[in-house]
């Protein structure tokens, strides 16, 4: 309650005290009648004044006192002086009571000046200070009250009042530091709980403003119920909390925020207080010793006024906005600062769930997203939260940040396609994106990762030109140079790397280490070998802790090796092995060294090197490569049996784990070896070695290894023997135990047996476990074929698209496109089918056996669309250009005959039939036989010739 709130409330003469927060005033309730003062005798005036003082009516009393003063002017008698002094003092009191504070100040000052030794002089001085306070003239109040601090004439109660006035005056003038001492005295001296609470409140605010958290903390508990709702206190708690939060003292901030009255608490507090007042108001007056009716009425009016005011305030509080959510948001930040992330997340979540339309809901959702983003194990949750933000706020305060962060999140998760889509969406949705340079940079990085170096190069160049001050400017320069390197633009790469290293704009040079190494690579690519060697040697000197040291050593090995200095070269490769920071670097050094040994014809060294490599690296290493090199070395040493044994041993050693797909590479190598000339010479030995390995694996119940060796047998045997292996493999329970090659065989054979459910299971398993296998497209093509066979065309088309997007222009994707075209054709989407068949001719890797087939099917589609002339032309191209493909040539002749018949070109039809039958291979096909029958029917005399 402020002074101005209470100013209308006054108390009786002797009890006047007006110290804003400390004292509650009573009402003046005395009704009076006007009196004709000038006409009355002095004795009457005095008698009337005395009576009025007893009944307490300052307004009516004031003219009497003034009149008495006039009448006694110049009278020096003691009695007259005493009366005059009394009247002067009481005039001040009456003026104070009637709200004429300035006049009261003047009256009291006049009184003190005239009668400095009067017993009421000290009290008058105190009332002067009070009058200043009631005018809210706090500087005046301070000035008036300071001299009274040492006045020994005051009672303890008045001493308290002096300190109350002084402390509030200082407090109101925001003299936080000076206010503390008198407030502490008030806190100690005050007996009334309300006064102590008020002192505590002001102390808390002062300490908060002074940054004295410890003392603030001490006095917070003393802010009692009567002051807890004080807006100033709550604001102070928030402000100090904010200060602490900004200083990183989250625990302290949290404590302060928790002390703030939330709206619900405030309402409950008001309702409780009002209930208490109501109880007092309903108590009837009871005559007791020491109580008067007037005092009861005065108290009653005061309480009623207090109740009405609180009711009004409560209405405002209920209707108004609250800062609860602001506090919750602040608390959430503190929890996050304390690394209690789930507390913070739950708070944010509560804000946007419970108050979805509140302005802070957006802030909360964004903060929750950012918080999850910084929790390494919650990246999926962060993704959902970020996407939810974008769904709710497609063009709001944090939309740009969210897009950018989501892009980075997806990139870090290796989901580059999704990251790219996110970046493109960001640019489309927010053309004036605040972080457009960063989005464009990330998109360029994605292009680089997708090995589209031309696009990436252009993008990095554009970013540097358009946004030279971009935070990624340095990175752009680096990546642009890297694009040059990867595009084999070595001149440009060399000058770009050199320019970067000399660029004074980047004093820190974040990419210096990498660039110093890549410069050597670029020079190497350019053919400047001495320059490259110099750069690699300098790199090794300059970056003794670099993870690229192994690669630099190997490059020096390559350079020296190319010069024929095989010994020096080997030395560098050994250093490369020692400095390797990862398995890829080890592999490069080891296999390059093997090549050198091979050049030296030191096959024993190859074998020893690989044995050591396998011992050191085990399944982590490229054991298939090692096995391959050892086999090769044994073969070169004319130890063929040992070579085969090495291959088989490698399979046996690492082959019982389905995920070891390097084993399958050796299996394929063995199949090739078996079918070679030398393999056929050692066929029995080969089979015996494998059979021994199979038997041992069966004994040891190494299911995966058994399946792998059975797969090998299935590839190198035929007839009944092969069938027995196939039967052993084709069990559903084998799927989870199978390696990559076994699953491929499984899928092929299941498809052959039209066991499509098994095909799907094997393919799905393959796709899950061998995601990076080079034969994955082959396996998925089998699944695609099964879908087409089962007339599941929409699924087939979708899978084909997925595979194309994933594997691009790989050779196997030709079949994928052909199968998609088949699905379109079979679902009678002929135009789309023709378009897709046409794709087969555009990509070099896709041409071959699929070309005549596609030509045939294009003709077939056109024929079904009634375009016999066009169809004929396509059929004709098959047997003119691809005669070697008998199956499609026969079908194409048949198609041509049909078209010619439809076109009414009977002579051409007969001519085509005869041409078809003139080719023995074609004549022997089912289509050839039908053609013969047709020709016989159409031209019996001409026969088949």
């Amino acid at each position: 309650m402020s002074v101005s709130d209470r100013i209308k409330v006054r108390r009786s003469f002797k009890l006047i005290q007006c110290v804003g927060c400390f004292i509650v005033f009573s009402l003046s309730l005395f009704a009076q009648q006007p009196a004709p003062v000038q006409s009355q005798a002095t004795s009457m005036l005095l008698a009337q004044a005395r009576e009025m003082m007893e009944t307490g009516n300052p307004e009516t009393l004031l003219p009497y006192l003034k009149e008495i003063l006039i009448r006694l002017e110049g009278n020096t008698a003691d009695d007259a002086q005493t009366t005059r002094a009394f009247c002067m003092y009481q005039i001040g009191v009456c003026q104070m009571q009637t709200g004429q504070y300035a006049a009261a100040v003047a009256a009291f000052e006049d009184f003190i000046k005239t009668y400095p030794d009067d017993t009421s002089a000290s009290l008058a001085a105190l009332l002067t200070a009070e009058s200043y306070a009631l005018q809210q003239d706090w500087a005046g109040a301070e000035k008036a009250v300071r001299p009274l601090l040492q006045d020994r004439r005051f009672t303890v109660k008045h001493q308290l009042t002096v300190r109350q006035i002084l402390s509030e005056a200082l407090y109101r003038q925001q003299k936080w530091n000076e206010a503390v001492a008198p407030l502490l005295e008030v806190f100690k001296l005050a007996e009334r709980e309300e006064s102590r609470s008020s002192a505590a409140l002001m102390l808390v605010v002062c300490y908060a403003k002074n940054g004295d958290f410890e003392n603030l903390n001490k006095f917070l508990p003393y802010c009692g119920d009567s002051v807890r709702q004080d807006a100033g206190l709550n604001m102070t708690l928030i402000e100090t909390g904010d200060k602490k939060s900004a200083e990183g003292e989250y625990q302290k901030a949290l404590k302060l925020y928790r002390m703030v009255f939330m709206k619900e608490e405030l309402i409950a507090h008001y309702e409780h207080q009002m209930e208490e007042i109501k109880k007092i108001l309903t108590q009837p007056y009871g005559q007791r010793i020491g109580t008067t009716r007037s005092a009861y009425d005065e108290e009653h009016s005061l309480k009623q006024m207090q109740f009405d005011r609180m009711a009004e305030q409560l209405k405002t509080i209920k209707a108004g906005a609250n800062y609860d959510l602001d506090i919750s948001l602040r608390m959430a930040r503190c929890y996050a600062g304390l690394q209690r992330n789930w507390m913070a997340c739950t708070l944010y979540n509560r804000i946007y769930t419970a108050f979805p339309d509140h302005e802070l809901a957006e802030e909360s959702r964004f903060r929750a997203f950012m918080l999850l983003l910084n929790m390494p194990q919650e990246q999926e949750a962060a993704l959902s939260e970020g996407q939810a933000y974008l769904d709710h706020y497609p063009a709001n305060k944090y939309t740009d940040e969210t897009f950018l962060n989501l892009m980075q999140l997806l990139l870090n998760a290796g989901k580059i396609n999704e990251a790219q889509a996110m970046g493109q969406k960001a640019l489309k949705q927010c053309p004036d994106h605040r972080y457009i340079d960063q989005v464009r940079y990330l998109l360029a990085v994605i292009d680089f990762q997708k090995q589209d170096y031309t696009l990436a190069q252009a993008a990095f160049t554009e970013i540097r030109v358009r946004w030279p001050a971009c935070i990624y400017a340095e990175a752009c320069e680096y990546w642009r140079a890297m694009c040059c390197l990867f595009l084999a633009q070595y001149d440009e790469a060399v000058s770009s790397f050199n320019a970067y290293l000399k660029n004074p704009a980047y004093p820190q040079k974040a990419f210096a280490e990498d660039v110093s190494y890549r410069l050597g690579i670029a020079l190497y690519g350019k053919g400047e070998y001495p320059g490259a060697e110099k750069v690699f040697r300098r790199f090794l000197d300059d970056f003794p802790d670099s993870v690229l040291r192994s690669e630099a050593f190997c490059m020096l090995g390559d350079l020296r090796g190319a010069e024929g200095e095989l010994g020096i070269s080997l030395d560098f490769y050994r250093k490369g092995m020692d400095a390797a920071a990862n398995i890829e670097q080890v592999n490069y050094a080891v296999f390059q060294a093997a090549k050198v040994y091979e050049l030296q014809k030191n096959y024993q060294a190859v074998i020893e090197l690989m044995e050591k490599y396998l011992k050191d690296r085990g399944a982590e290493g490229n054991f298939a490569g090692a096995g391959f090199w050892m086999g090769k070395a044994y073969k070169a040493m004319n130890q063929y049996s040992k070579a085969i044994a090495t291959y088989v041993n490698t399979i046996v050693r690492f082959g019982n784990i389905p995920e070891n797909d390097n084993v399958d590479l050796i299996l394929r190598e063995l199949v090739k070896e078996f079918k070679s000339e030398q393999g056929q010479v050692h066929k029995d030995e080969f089979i015996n070695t494998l059979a021994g390995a199979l038997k041992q694996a069966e004994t040891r119940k190494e299911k995966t290894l058994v399946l792998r060796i059975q797969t090998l047998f299935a590839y190198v045997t035929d007839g009944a023997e092969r069938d027995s292996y196939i039967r052993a493999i084709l069990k559903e329970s084998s799927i989870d135990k199978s390696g990559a090659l076994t699953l491929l065989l499984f899928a092929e054979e299941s498809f052959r047996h039209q066991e499509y459910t098994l095909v799907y299971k094997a393919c799905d398993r393959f796709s899950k476990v061998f995601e990076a296998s080079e034969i994955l497209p082959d396996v998925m093509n089998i699944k695609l074929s099964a879908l087409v066979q089962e007339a599941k065309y929409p699924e087939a088309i979708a899978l084909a698209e997925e595979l194309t997007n994933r594997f691009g222009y790989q050779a196997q994707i030709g079949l994928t496109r052909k199968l998609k075209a088949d699905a379109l054709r079979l679902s009678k989407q002929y135009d789309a089918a023709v378009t897709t068949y046409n794709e087969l001719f555009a990509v070099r890797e896709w041409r071959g056996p699929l070309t005549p087939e596609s030509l045939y099917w294009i003709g077939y589609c056109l024929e079904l669309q009634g375009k016999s002339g066009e169809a004929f032309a396509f059929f004709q191209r098959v047997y003119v250009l691809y005669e070697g493909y008998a199956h499609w040539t026969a079908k194409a002749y048949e198609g041509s005959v049909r078209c010619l018949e439809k076109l009414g070109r009977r002579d051409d039809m007969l001519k085509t039939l005869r041409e078809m039958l003139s080719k023995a291979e074609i004549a022997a096909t089912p289509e050839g036989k039908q053609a013969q029958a047709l020709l016989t029917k159409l031209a019996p005399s001409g026969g088949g010739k």
Partner: protein
Amino acid sequence: MKARSALFVTGLMLVFGLPSLHAQADMKARITYDKGVSVNVENPVARDNAVVLPQGVLPFSRISRIDFEFGDGLTAEKCGILFKSGAIDSLEKLLTAALKQADPFMNLPGNLDVYLTWQMKVQFWNGRYAEMNKTVDLLRKRNAPSSGLTGMYTTLAMAEQNRNDDAAKIFAAVDKADAISEPMALFVRARLAMTKREYRQALQYLARVVILHDKDTEWVPAATLYEGLVYKRTGYLEAAGNVAKELVERYPDGYWTRRAEELK
């Protein structure tokens, strides 16, 4: 008035504010019997399933309820205040002494349920699970309104004793756990998740206790403590340290401050 420092005042208030915990006090009982007749008795004595009154012997079978008023001002409200202030050891001592006096009347209906419920709580938090089980049995026998809580405290006790399967089974049998006490049900779920090392899930439950039930004087400090334990177990020692500080600051000089030591 003699001037005192604010701290001195605080000290005095605490000294005078706390109850005299160890004094043995008298017990009063209001016995309601027959058709609503009631009588006040000081230190009631039981003999052969009856109360010995000055005016004669009143068999238990005629008593419809007996409400106790314990010495030392031990009331249900005071139990709450002591629990909230973290004086769990003291509360347990007071309850043990009071309920020992009331032991002969344990099978009679009346206001003992509320004290037994407090006893179950403090026995749980002080790790006296065997004693807690006896209190749980008593509450069940008395058909106390808090019998729903017993299942949840038993679950927690099982979890504390690493009897994880039993804990899960008992909790599964608790009917409408959320209706009994939502913060407690969340806490129990968090504890069960912790037994399965599902720490992420546990933290989510604990956060809901702390944030959505921030006025709860039992489950908020409990959830805060276990939040810290999760951090400690998962290697987030800085966060665990922050939680320990919070417990010490928010619940000074009591049970939770002592438990905060576990986080260091």
